[in-house]
């Protein structure tokens, strides 16, 4: 006897359930959908029960994974199903701690260093840092627009969404008049922010590439 297979309408019912639970990120959705379908088919065959009964049994086991939650890593504004938050945290954790380090290490280093630049050196270094700020802010904005145009959602597009607000740090760096203090030394806060923003832009670029790769992997349907 051929193995029991769900009808297109029954699969649509599961898809609707996943939509209601906001499981829309394709890398997670396809494996969850596949798992639920296989679980339901096996249970119908094994226990000889109707689809509705088995559907509720199987989906009730998944509800905890789809409960909406947030993480301190991304902020309470970014709410998503637990399974997505968990995966995103696994990817982002290392980058988060490096981001913190990219701000605080220069801040501490330049706060305790005893040095000063000549006025001419300050002028040229300041110009150079402004050019760097404009370049990275423009690149970040470009990636932000590209990401917004991408229709397919992946865990990486969720991560990109959580990092999008960094553009304001970029704009702050662009409009910072002077990266030096009155003593001719680097302003540790401005330099820290610029380095953290450069780092965020590079991470943002990496996540964007990974998102595009994921889109290419899953668009074969």
């Amino acid at each position, binding site marked *: 006897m051929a193995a029991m297979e769900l009808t297109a309408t029954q699969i649509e019912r599961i898809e609707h359930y996943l939509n209601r639970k906001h499981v829309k990120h394709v890398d997670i959705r396809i494996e969850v959908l596949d798992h639920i379908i296989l679980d339901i088919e096996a249970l119908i065959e094994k226990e000889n029960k109707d689809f509705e009964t088995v559907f509720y049994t199987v989906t009730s086991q998944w509800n905890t994974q789809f409960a909406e939650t947030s993480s301190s890593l991304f902020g309470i504004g970014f709410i998503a199903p637990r399974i997505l938050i*968990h995966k995103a945290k696994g990817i982002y954790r290392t980058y988060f701690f490096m981001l913190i380090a990219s701000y605080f290490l220069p801040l501490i280093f330049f706060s305790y260093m005893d040095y000063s630049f000549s006025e001419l050196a300050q002028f040229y270094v300041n110009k150079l840092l402004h050019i760097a700020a404009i370049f990275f802010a423009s690149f970040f904005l470009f990636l932000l627009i590209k990401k917004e145009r991408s229709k397919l959602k992946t865990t990486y597009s969720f991560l990109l969404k959580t990092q999008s607000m960094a553009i304001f740090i970029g704009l702050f760096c662009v409009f910072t008049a002077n990266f030096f203090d009155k003593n001719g030394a680097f302003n540790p806060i401005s330099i820290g922010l610029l380095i953290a923003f450069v780092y965020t832009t590079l991470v943002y670029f990496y996540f964007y590439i990974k998102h595009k790769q994921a889109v290419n992997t899953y668009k074969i349907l």
Partner: protein
Amino acid sequence: MRAFTKDKNMGNQKLYKGSLQTIILKLLAQNNKMYGYEITQYVKELTKGELQITEGALYPALHKLEADGLLDVEVAKVGNRLRKYYKLTESGSKETANKLAEMQEFLKTMQQLVNPRFSLD
């Protein structure tokens, strides 16, 4: 995270919990590539139902291994839907060997602790 398994035998399940990643790596080393549901069924069959991995434990473990670069993903079309297969990366294969060696060492130590061989020598 939910309990590791749906089984009533929770004492054993807690013992298995810390070994989930090693179990997954070992299965993938044996079977080249597997999808989530297949892993749960394979483990259930191998252990004659003693160990049942829940979705709440399986997917976080798979995603963690993927994020660590130990697993790679391959997608295949099955009927009208996609199926996501996991397979070991090169570093995943090396890590499997390390984890299995660690596991062997752990089992040996536990054996010595739980069932020491007394000798009159």
